[in-house]
Structures are given as C-alpha cells and as structure tokens.
C-alpha cells in the first residue's frame, strides 16, 4: 500500500469534530484522494467525547492504520477514554489547545510530540469562526489537502447566513497558517492529484446498504430505531418514498419483521434493518419466513454484545446467532459485505437471493462499515437480477408448497385469481394445509433445505486472493485490515492465500475446499471473543491441517500492522514444523 495519512480530530460532543472530519474527507475526495472516516463516540447523546478518525491516500482505503500521524484535540475532556482507539507513535504529532491544560498521559506514552496552540483564542479573534474550522484548516494543511478543496467543501455544505461563512473561511485560513508555522519535525503531507476523476462516490456503509436494497428492488421497509442501524433507515425513508416505496416505523422489532413478512407475502420485496438486540427479537419472525417461504432481508448492523452491550462500537459477534440462532431446522441465507462499497453489492445480492429462493436473508454489516464514510469508485450495476418465481393466474391444481426438484415453488401474489392459498408457519402439505404428518414434515424440511443447498451462487460467495500453502480466512468488515496485512506480510516474504467469505450460509463447503486446494494450514481471523467463524467452519466442513483462530472482540479494530506481525509469526511457526502425513 502506498503511503497514507492518518489523523484524528477529537473533542467533547458538540465541538463539531464530526463536521470537521466529514468536511475534511469531502475536501480530500475533491482533491482526488481516497479516504475513510470512522466515527467514534461515547454513549452520551450530547456533551460526551467524540472523535473523527481519518485515513487518506492515493488508493482506496478500507481500514484504519496502526498509528495516527496527527491527533488534533480541541479539548482533552474525556480523551483518555479514546487513547487506545487513537494509537500514537514516535513520529506522531499531538496538537492541543494552549489553554486546555495537560493532555492525558496515555496519549504521550508512545512517544508522540506535543504541540499546543491557541486554537480557541484564534477562533474568537476570527470574528465568529468556530474552533472546529480552525482544526479543519490545521488538519487539512498537515495532511496535504489543498486550501481550495477545503473551502469548496465548506461552501457546498453551508446552510447558514453568508457572514458566518466568511468568518469560518477565515478560521480555515487561520488554522492552515498555524500548521504552516509548526516547527519541524512534522509528518510528511500527502501530495494529492488535485481533482477527483469521474465516477467517485462518497458515502457510508449504511447508505450503501440502503442503496443496494433499493437497487435490488426493495420497496417496503418496516423498522424500529436502533444504533448503529438507524442511519440506514433514515437514508432509506426519503429515498424509498421517491422511488414509490414506503418506510414505516414499527412499534418494535417483533412488528417490523412481521410487517415486512406481510408486505412480502403481498408481493413487494421487503427489508428491515436492526442490530443484535433487535435481531434477537426478530428470531421467531425469521423462522416464520423460513417455514412460510416468504422472502425477506434483515440487515444486522452488528455492535458489541451480548444484551445492550456496546451500542456505538463495532464487533462481529452476531455470526453464531445468524447462522444457527433459530428454532427448528431452519435454512436461511447469511451474507456479509466485505467493505463499505460492498455493503451496496452484497445487500443487493441478498435481496435477489431472498426473492429467488423465497427465504430470509440476513446481511451482517457492522458499526465500523455502517457508520464510516469512504471515498469509493462508483459500484457497477449488475443488471442480471434474480427474481421471485410467481404463480400464473388460474394455475391448475395450484400447490403453493409444491415439492419441485429445485425446491423453489411458484408463489402466488394476493389479488391473482385462481391461486388462492394460505401461507402458514404451521408445517403444511404441498397445498399449504396444516399437517403434522411425518411425510409432509420430511418433505417440506427437505424442500426448504434443497432450494438453498442446490442454488448456484456463482463466484461471489468469497473473494479469493493470492497463493501459498497457508491461508487466512475472514469475513465481513475485517477483510480490509486482513487484506492489507496479507500484502504487508508478502512484502516481508510471507505469502498467504486470502479467503474473505461473503456468503456465510449456506456455507459453500465444496467451493471452499477448492479455494483451499494445496493449503496445509488455515488461520481464521474475526472480531469477536469466542472465535465464532472458526467454530462455524469447523462444525460444517473439514479445514486443512489444524485450524487456528485469531479473534479479538470489539471495540478496538483489528489493525493491519498487528495482523501482519501475527501472520508472519504464525507462518514461520508452521513453516518449520513437520507435517503429519495424511
């Protein structure tokens, strides 16, 4: 990976650090850079601590770096709570306000150089400009983002009176001047191309997932607000309305999942979005969608669990629940986007699969992807869309749950004459009549399993990269860090194969076998405490060698440097060991 610049702007809630971070990412994009901005904040709605974490570079950025080049703190209030989320090293610059007192010791323990500047005093002097605009000007100059791009970003987002804009443009310039006046050594700035080529987008993973849902054909959403999924819903509410769909705020998650099942039964592709606690409440409804064969999509923007857990921080710990957490034998689809951009394509694919297979599809996004914003290349639109198999009007001897070879049976849309049936969560005959008979139960269980097992999922089930006798398997949002770590390990002479799973259930065991052909050992990397992916893979397939796991819970992200170190150590330990012959 080419050089990148990592910076954090921190301050107490309300100081405007998120606004500054968002504008800086926008400005960097205008100057032709790629970038990522991660939001981190405490549990308070107003007045808590908050930080915008950015990484900018000439290539797409999928993960945060090991260390930050710059931490700019508007105040030190509660910043010690963030110290481990903003690791600083000997080359890092820590900038604080001259009147804010001493910084938390933890921030300096890595050897960062501290500089204090009169941020708030200068802001007051700038005639109404805000301190976060001083910070933006300063951080932008340090990172190499040109002043005209910063000004353009500020102008285009400005919604208040013109005089205040002038004051804040002045504040931007003051901040840049302060950066220019810093004594060496300072981290080397980037040199951006100057302007953005056509076809770049700037969006969050939550927005990308919402957009993918609409691309996939979703026209009805019912949902209950929950962190960190709410922004997905708030983006969809007006967007869905503009394309002729509806978003309905339900009274709880039990209602949301049953509402979308009702809407989808009515023939309208439907989705809900939630996080772990909501997903748990929806379990019975998802089972109904399995049994009654109603297509639905549930996007789970994962956060720290169990229970209320850590609502605003990321973790990949709903995997076990997603793949196994329903009562009865209940085949379902589970997918996980591997990047912010992929939130779009994977959610779109989930809608298509749910519709084509008349089954629930769970999409495992997470807080890291959902609430982060990134500059991406505009995703291609795959026009080949799988569709629901709909029963013809007056189909003779219509059997809703006919035991077809594929397992998929035509689904009648209410309003169609001659195909009346009752969708049922009770076990049923092929005609949909409730049945507790052994033969009907076996037939319908096998039908529902077969339709998912036999489907041809094509090449998108995983991203498979590199070669070698050692492989790293991961899924979801950790893919970005793992991919970068694999590249760094390769640069140090350790070749690893990477398998990033996108379709988790049904597990493509045969395809995984082929992807791992020639591999002696695997390491499974994931962001949770218990090694859920490792356990899942071991329960469903035979992995080569003695599979190892590298797993750590949230909220700290897995960083590429520590992963690369771990990969090199793991590989060198495996390289010298005699293998037991098969």
């Amino acid at each position, binding site marked *: 990976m080419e050089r990148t610049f990592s910076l954090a702007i921190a301050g107490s809630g309300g100081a405007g650090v998120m606004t500054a971070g968002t504008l800086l990412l*926008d400005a960097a994009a*205008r100057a032709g850079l790629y970038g990522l901005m991660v939001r981190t904040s405490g549990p308070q709605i107003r007045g808590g601590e908050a930080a915008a974490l950015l990484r900018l570079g000439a290539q797409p950025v999928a993960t945060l770096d090991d260390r930050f080049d710059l931490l700019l703190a508007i105040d030190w209030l509660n910043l010690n709570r963030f110290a481990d989320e903003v690791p600083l090293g000997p080359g890092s610059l820590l900038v604080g306000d001259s009147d804010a007192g001493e910084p938390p010791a933890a921030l300096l323990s890595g050897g960062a150089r501290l500089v204090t500047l009169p941020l708030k005093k200068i802001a007051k002097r700038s005639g109404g400009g805000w301190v976060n605009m001083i910070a933006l000007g300063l951080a932008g100059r340090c990172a190499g983002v040109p002043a005209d791009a910063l000004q353009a970003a500020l102008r285009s987002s400005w919604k208040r009176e013109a005089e205040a804009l002038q004051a804040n443009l002045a504040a931007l310039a003051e901040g840049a001047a302060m950066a220019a006046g810093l004594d060496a050594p300072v981290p080397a700035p980037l040199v951006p191309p100057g302007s*953005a080529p056509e*076809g*770049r*987008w*700037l969006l969050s993973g939550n*927005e990308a997932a919402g*957009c993918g849902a*609409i691309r996939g054909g979703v*026209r*009805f959403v*019912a949902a209950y607000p929950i962190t960190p999924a709410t922004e997905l819903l708030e983006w969809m509410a007006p*967007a869905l*309305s*503009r*394309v*002729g769909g*509806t978003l*309905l705020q*339900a*009274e*709880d998650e*039990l*209602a*949301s999942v*049953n*509402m*979308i*099942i*009702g*809407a*989808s*039964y*009515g*023939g*309208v592709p*439907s989705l809900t979005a939630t996080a772990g606690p909501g997903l748990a409440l929806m379990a*019975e*409804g998802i*089972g*109904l969608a399995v049994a*009654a064969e109603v297509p639905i999509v549930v996007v789970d923007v994962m956060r720290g669990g169990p229970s209320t857990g850590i609502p605003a921080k990321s973790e990949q710990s709903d995997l076990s629940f997603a793949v196994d957490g329903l009562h009865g034998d209940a085949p379902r689809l589970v997918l996980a986007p591997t990047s912010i951009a992929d939130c779009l394509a994977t959610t779109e694919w989930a809608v298509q699969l749910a519709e084509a297979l008349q089954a629930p599809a769970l999409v495992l996004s997470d807080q890291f992807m959902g609430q982060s914003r990134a*500059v991406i290349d*505009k995703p291609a639109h795959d026009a080949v869309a799988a569709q629901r198999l709909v029963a013809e009007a007056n189909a003779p001897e219509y059997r809703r749950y006919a035991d077809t070879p594929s397992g998929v049976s035509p689904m*009648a849309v*209410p*309003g*169609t*004459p*001659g*195909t*009346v049936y*009752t*969708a*049922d*969560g*009770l076990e049923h005959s092929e005609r*949909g*009549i409730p049945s507790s008979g052994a033969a009907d139960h076996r037939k319908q269980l096998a039908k529902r399993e077969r339709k998912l097992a036999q489907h041809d999922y094509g090449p998108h089930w995983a991203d498979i990269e590199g070669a070698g006798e050692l492989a790293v398997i991961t899924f979801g949002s950790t893919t970005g860090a793992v991919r970068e770590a694999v590249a760094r390990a390769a640069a140090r002479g350790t070749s690893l194969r990477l398998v990033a799973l996108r379709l988790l259930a049904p597990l493509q065991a045969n395809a995984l076998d082929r992807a791992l052909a020639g591999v002696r050992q695997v390491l499974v990397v994931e962001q949770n405490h218990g090694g859920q992916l490792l356990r899942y893979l071991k329960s469903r397939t035979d992995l080569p060698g003695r599979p190892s796991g590298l797993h750590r819970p949230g909220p700290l992200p897995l960083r590429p440097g520590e992963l690369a170190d771990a990969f090199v150590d793991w590989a060198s330990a495996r390289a010298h060991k005699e293998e037991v012959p098969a």
Partner: protein
Amino acid sequence: MNDMTAPLAFAAADYKSDYKPIWCPGCGDYTVLSSVTKALAMIQRPPHEVAVVSGIGCSSRLPAYTTCYGFHGVHGRALAAGTGLKVARPDLTVIVAGGDGDGYSIGGNHFLHACRRNVDLTYIVMDNHVYGMTKGQASPTTEPDWDNKLSPGGTGVRAFHPLVIALASGANFVARAFSGDPNGTAAIIAQAIRHPGFSFVEVLSPCITFRPEQRQWKELVHAAPVAETDDPARAARRIMTDDGFNVGVLYAGSRPVYARAKEASASLAEIEAEFAL
C-alpha cells in the same frame, strides 16, 4: 351503490373453503366464520382480492376456512403482518382475525399501535375469555376469580377492556358483536370493512369446552341502547359503563387514515447521483 336488481356475483358460500375446521362442536367461531363470509358477500369483493391474516389460536385458524388469500403467522403478530400487507398492497381488502390471547396479551402492543396508526383494515377478535388451544388458561379478558390449573383460584387480575383501549388508542370504528347472532355480526363486519381506517370488531364467541357457562351469553347480550356515535367522549362513557354484553356499533369516527404517497418522483439514478462527488 350496487344495482339492487342485478344478480350478485358472489354468494356467502363462495367465500367458504371446503376445509373442515378443527374447532370443537358448539364453538362460537363457526358462526363467526359464516358471518365473515356473509359480510364479504355483502361487500361483493372477489375472494382473491381479499386477504385474511391471523396469528395463533383456535380462532386464528379462520383464514384457510375462507376462499380468500390467507396468512397464518406467528402468535400475537397478526396485526403487524396485516399492517405490512395493507400498506404495501392498499388495493387489497385486508381482514385480520384472532382471539383474545393472541390480540390482547402476546399481541397487546401491536393492538395499541394498530389502533393509533389507523391503517384501513378490519380487525375481528373472537373473544371467549380463555386460551382454548392450550386447554383452558386465563386470558386478558378472563374474570379474575376464574379457577384454572395454571392459576388456581383465578389470576386475581382484573379483566382487560379491549373496546375502551381501542377507543383510547385511536381506532376509527369500534363495535361489539355476538356469534350467536350471525346476521347481526355479518352486518357489523360489513360496516367495519366499509368504514375507512382501523375498524375493530370484538365478537363474543363462546368456548363451551372450557367455559360452558358461556352458553348463558345468549341470554345476556342486548342491543346498544343508544345510536352509534362519532363522539369519542360519549362512546367512552357508554363503553366504560356498559355490562360487557352491549352489542352494536359503539363508535364510528372520521380520523385521517394512514396513507403513504405511492407515486415515484425520482429514478434510482437520480438518487444515486447524490453520492457522486
């Protein structure tokens, strides 16, 4: 208005399927089913343009006994499924049916919010003051001193008042009917279906298996002594003070019906363009 001289396209029998109900002999739900089919014949909507949605319980078996599209979901969530269906498919006539346990206990929250949301659907509760399918436990409308195995000596908890709750929560049409009067019940259900917004019809429907004393209900029911009203204060006073056997339309209001604009005003490409730099 229909041409009264033209032959009707659909008779009540056209809405009745040939599946044999699982209900006990003497169950009130048989006549509720016949009232539903009679009401649909009054409406004259083709069966395939009607959807009957239910949860779990004896009465929730009703959808498959009609020739309409049916949805038999999970316990307590019928109103949620019916709401999603009606909002996504406003062209359909949606009837949600169930019992007192399904609607007032496990589904109680959805009942409140369906009333206040006022989506244009009809909710029929066959209230027998007992859980029948699980063989005789107290429901929210059971008298507090009714002795049963799960609550020996009774629950000691006062009965829930569904009509007052519905009125207070914003239901646009509130009525009580009695299964022993199938024609009267059919007329009320037809009126409920025609009335815009959320229409709630509580049908007293005896369970003579677990509550044989409910055979007496036919002696106790009586017509609403005053004309139906669109004044919620009058309706509330009357419902709060009646004896629970007052049959008729007790409130018919004109609250705005839940509606969402369905016309597309932008293409997907226009929306996506907002992500571009």
